[in-house]
């Protein structure tokens, strides 16, 4: 089965509210990275974590290697936050991060 399970696959938020995206791992991962897909289809780096938490503006991410999960929290969602978010986890040693299937976020007025 997939090593990275990302949820939810789709999320709808009202402007000003918040929620969390989650990636669960079936094996121990060394690090996790969160991306957002831009209008051209490329991936923009949001966070890279080998442990602990990081925060940037209205986004906060956490990674727990032992418990095998990572989260991306969005607070005070804005319309421009709409898009697809991906996590990618690195198990170390094989040069191939494993991507989640993505979360499609729509923020409504």
């Amino acid at each position, binding site marked *: 089965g997939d090593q990275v399970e990302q949820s939810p696959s789709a999320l709808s938020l009202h402007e000003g509210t918040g929620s969390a995206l989650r990636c669960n791992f079936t094996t121990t991962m060394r690090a996790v990275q969160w991306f957002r897909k831009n209008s051209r289809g490329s*991936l923009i780096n949001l966070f890279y974590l080998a442990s602990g938490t990081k925060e940037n503006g209205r986004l906060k991410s956490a990674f727990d290697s032992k418990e095998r999960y990572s989260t991306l929290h969005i607070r005070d969602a804005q319309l421009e936050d709409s898009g697809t978010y991906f996590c990618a986890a690195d198990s170390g040693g094989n040069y*191939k991060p494993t991507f989640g299937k993505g979360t499609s976020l729509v923020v409504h007025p």
Partner: protein
Amino acid sequence: GGIITQTPKFLIGQEGQKLTLKCQQNFNHDTMYWYRQDSGKGLRLIYYSITENDLQKGDLSEGYDASREKKSSFSLTVTSAQKNEMAVFLCALRGGSYEQYFGPGTRLTVL
């Protein structure tokens, strides 16, 4: 900082045509990747290269060739474009702390 450049930005091909996409980077990092992204789907790894002249197949290598003749460049060839195919091809590299950085992408349309 550095730059990842992908050319062309848009590529329109004909069914059966051989098409080449190029990726260049000036980060001086070793490991580079080619991914394919189809609308509504996740990323699929086509090829990756750990260093100059190295090539490793990903999960979707069939129908593609790759070339890493220089550390700074990684090319991908679609050996025979499929009719009505539409996808974004993303080049990425692996940074010093193992994080990935993505290029701007090449959008392929096959008529």
